[in-house]
């Protein structure tokens, strides 16, 4: 059972002697094997939520629990995929994925097959000995995702993972992630500002207000997806063509637009 639970979480940020309220009383539970996406205007604190689940930041009040244990710091049980990839430039693709595995006491043969599995899955075959600087952004992010998945974490945390990629690559990555997520369901908290991405990937979409961030509404995508059988379309553009998809997307857009109108510039 891998759940993420935000209970009355608030986050205050101090700068130049002034206090800024970033998050205001967040209550959210991500269920076991549920894919939850958080969308919201810039500065709404959605990334901060993820970082608190990761243990890279801590709430000013309230608690963040993963599996009912309060988060006290980062760890491989809560794997993070960063927007900036965060691969180690001095390690090869293989070593980057291996690095986190080595500390887990897995014997060599098992590690090797595990890495090979994810390399194949993420279309990285042939690049095992390449260094990050030799790879495109999309390839690097694939490695980062492989690295995270290989850890077999309780929880996967993704911070706008496709934000730094160009539009075409992003689409390809979204398709790959969907396949991966449906095949290997896990508890995922996915941060993005791209609404379509959220609707395409997630089971539920959380819409946040502008700063101070509160949860405005939560929409259930999974029931619509299953009812309308989106998954029978392999291509992303076919899914995005569905009336039900457009309806949901527009709904969320409208919700966000209200926030933008009120947001600081």
């Amino acid at each position, binding site marked *: 059972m891998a759940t993420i639970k935000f209970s009355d979480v608030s986050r205050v940020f101090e700068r130049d002697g002034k206090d800024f309220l970033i998050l205001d009383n967040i209550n959210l539970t991500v269920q076991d094997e549920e894919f939850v996406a958080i969308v919201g205007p810039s500065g709404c604190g959605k990334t901060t939520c993820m970082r608190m689940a990761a243990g*890279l930041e801590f709430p000013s009040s309230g608690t963040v629990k993963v599996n009912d244990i309060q988060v006290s710091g980062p760890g491989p049980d809560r794997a993070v995929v960063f927007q900036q990839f*965060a691969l180690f430039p001095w390690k090869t693709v293989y070593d980057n994925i291996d690095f986190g595995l080595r500390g887990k006491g897995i014997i060599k043969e098992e590690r090797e097959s595990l890495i090979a599995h994810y390399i194949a899955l993420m279309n990285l075959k042939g690049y095992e000995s390449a260094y990050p600087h030799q790879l495109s952004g999309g390839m690097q992010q694939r490695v980062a995702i492989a690295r995270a998945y290989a850890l077999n974490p309780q929880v996967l945390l993704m911070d706008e993972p496709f934000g730094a990629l160009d539009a075409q690559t992003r689409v390809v990555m979204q398709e790959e992630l969907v396949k991966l997520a449906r095949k290997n369901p896990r508890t995922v908290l996915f941060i993005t500002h791209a609404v379509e991405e959220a609707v395409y990937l997630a089971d539920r979409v959380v819409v946040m207000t502008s700063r101070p961030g509160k949860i405005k509404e939560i929409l259930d995508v999974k029931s619509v997806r299953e009812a309308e059988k989106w998954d029978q379309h392999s291509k992303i553009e076919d899914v995005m063509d569905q009336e039900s998809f457009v309806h949901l997307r527009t709904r969320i857009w409208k919700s966000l637009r209200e926030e933008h109108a009120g947001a600081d510039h």
Partner: protein
Amino acid sequence: MLLLFFWYLATTLTGWINPSRFPRPDEVLKAFTFIQAEGYGNGKLHQHVLHSLKLVAMGFAVAVSVGVPLGLLMGYSRRAEALINPAFLLLRPIPPLAWIPLAIVWLGLEDGSKILVIFVAAFVPSVINSYSGVRNIETPVMEAASMLGIKGRRMVFEVLIPGAMPMIFTGLRLSLQASWTTLVAAELIGALYGLGSILNQAAQDIFPAMILLAMVFVGICGASTTGLLGVLENQAMPWRKGRVAA
């Protein structure tokens, strides 16, 4: 090349520069053969060069083996930084050359005092640059490391050191430069062997050609040791841009 020509012109042909002030090219050549064959100031050229090299190597090696780990530690741990910084800040403004008299009081005119001074000179750049190297590792990369649960030895050897490598090498280069400068000065003041001692002797004997020769060789030694360091640098960092993948 132009310089050589200009030099030759100024000294030999036009007699524009008085030979007792600045040597002519052929005089320098003569000095070179002389010191090779018969030695000067207690030894032949290669003996002096080797001696100087030895001292630089020892001072540099100790300075770097203490300085780099210290810099890495101070970069990684804010606690260590706060603790060690005061001592560092107090000692750092004192120029290495100013340590020479103290080194002589403590260790006499023998090799020991030279090595001490070289150590002081080479120590500071190593620490500072290693420190910067760690601080300059991108935050996402460091966060990824802690996310993966990397600690202790693995953190030091597989994250901090490779991450800080480029700046560590910058520090090494600066340390090496400082080592040579300081050695020459220390040997000028008082030494039996070494390139600096040649300079000293030649100055006293008013032998301009030998002075210039010694200076040239200091430059050569400095350049070749730096070049060696450069080769090491390329070997140590196969992941850098601009290198062809295997």
